[in-house]
């Protein structure tokens, strides 16, 4: 049985039942799941977790879902790679890559949707819904298929066909909204109030957001039950960023890892960096922006959790970065060339942000650092297609090969 007890307002603290609610009726602050900490404390141990499944559900004691309702696509327990070659290139001593490209629909969204869809099932919903331009829709469609639920996905009318495919294959209902990005926002916010659908990041958002904590749990466990000293994570709404920190804090509170501070560094693309801009201006007032970046998965101009992300940075002596689109591409290439991990543009933001954080002194290169790679590169192949190695054309003869190979700039000396 879940140890979730209620939803609590992050602003005024008022409590609400565990229902599909996301905003406090009194002050309109965001709601967050609250837990019976004593109950969790009495039950949770390293051994109990280690004996669980190799997925996010090994942490079910810490999630707002009862076991009978789990929608299981085997999400999570993704690799934590020691990135020695990339560390050397960046002048770091110990760098780890949390590779969440290995999830079932190739992004970290599977973590949040797994929890949201499971809780939605527990709440009696038959339909999962979302507004999305990519990763979220892919994951909602996949989880609905797995659960035997209906899926309704709202997309802007001008979304590229390739991005629709990753959802369409699971046969959801896809609604193409003839309007701007803001129009889709408004329509879905209204529908979430009027329809008995579980909009994963609207009316069941408090449960959805909880899934991100599993990233921190896994990292701590995979590091041998310890927290890293520093973290670099991409920021869109800011929710992932704050929940990663919360995850490390919880493990410390439950005595699963030793108490040690984790410095949280956020990464955004310059073309959509409202949180970093506020950080640099030393204000918690976030000014919404119109996104203009190749890092589409981070293109949230009005981030719902930006204020809380800023508070997390301040509390952890952290920081925030913003990188240009060419730097994003460089980041993707560096990660791929050094570590064999092909990330989407958000991963490029993370790696370029890591480099910027080192250059600006926000990160100590001698401390243990984890960088979170949140989505697979094939999702945003267009961003790098012009920048990658081109084939060497040859005829089917040895001479043709020898001539071309000798002149190719990237040719390597192959023994024998």
């Amino acid at each position, binding site marked *: 049985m879940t140890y979730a007890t209620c939803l609590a307002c992050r*602003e005024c603290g008022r409590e609400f039942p565990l229902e599909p609610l*996301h*905003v406090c009726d*009194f*002050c*309109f*602050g*965001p709601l967050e799941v609250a837990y019976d900490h004593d109950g969790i404390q009495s039950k949770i141990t390293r051994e109990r977790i280690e004996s669980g499944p190799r997925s996010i559900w090994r942490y079910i004691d810490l999630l707002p879902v009862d076991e009978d309702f789990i929608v299981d696509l085997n999400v999570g327990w993704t690799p934590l790679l020691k990135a020695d070659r990339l560390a050397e290139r960046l002048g770091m001593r110990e760098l780890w890559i949390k590779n969440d490209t290995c999830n079932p629909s190739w992004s970290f*969204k599977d973590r949040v949707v797994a929890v949201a869809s499971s809780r939605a099932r527990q709440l009696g919903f038959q339909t999962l819904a*979302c*507004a*999305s*331009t*990519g*990763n*979220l829709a892919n994951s909602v469609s996949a989880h609905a298929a797995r659960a035997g639920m209906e899926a309704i996905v*709202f997309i*802007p009318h001008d979304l590229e066909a390739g991005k629709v495919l990753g959802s369409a294959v699971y046969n959801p209902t896809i609604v193409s909204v003839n309007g701007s*990005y*803001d129009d*889709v*926002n*408004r329509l*879905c*916010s*209204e529908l*979430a109030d009027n329809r008995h659908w579980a*909009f994963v*990041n*609207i009316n069941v*958002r408090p449960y959805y957001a909880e899934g991100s904590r599993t990233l921190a749990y896994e990292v701590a466990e995979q590091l041998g039950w310890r927290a890293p000293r520093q973290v670099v994570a991409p920021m*869109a*709404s800011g929710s992932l960023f704050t929940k990663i920190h919360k995850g490390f804090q919880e493990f410390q509170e439950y005595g699963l890892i030793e108490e040690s501070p984790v410095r949280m560094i956020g990464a955004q693309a310059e073309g959509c960096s409202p949180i970093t801009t506020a950080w640099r201006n030393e204000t918690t*007032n976030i*000014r*919404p922006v119109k996104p203009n970046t190749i890092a*589409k*998965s*981070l*293109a*949230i*101009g*009005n*981030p*719902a*959790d*930006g204020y809380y992300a800023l508070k997390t940075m301040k509390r952890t002596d952290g920081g925030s970065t913003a990188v240009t689109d060419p730097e994003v591409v460089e980041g993707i290439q560096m990660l791929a060339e050094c570590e064999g991990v092909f990330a989407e543009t*958000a991963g490029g933001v993370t790696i370029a942000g890591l480099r910027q954080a080192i250059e600006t002194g926000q990160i100590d290169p001698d401390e243990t650092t984890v960088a979170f790679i949140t*989505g697979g590169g094939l999702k945003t192949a267009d961003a790098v297609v012009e920048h990658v190695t081109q084939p060497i054309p040859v005829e089917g003869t040895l001479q043709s090969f020898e001539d071309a190979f000798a002149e190719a700039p990237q040719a390597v000396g192959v023994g024998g």
Partner: protein
Amino acid sequence: MATRRVRFTFEGDAVKEPVIYLVGHEFEVVTNIRMADVEHDFGWVVLELDGDHDEIDRALAWVEAKGVRIDPVAGDVVES
């Protein structure tokens, strides 16, 4: 009757205009402010609007034409 929860973001000269007062004056809409933070050249207000659905739409279109950004209280819900 309908209820809409929205966030107004004001920048520049829009901060100085009594936009919320005028919404209640010019339209059959009741405004109820729940949270706000306003600085000299920037501010946001989270409020509830009560009224006929179409009248709220008209009021919001008028507010937007004044240069005020309008968002759902939950922020952007369209994610990648």
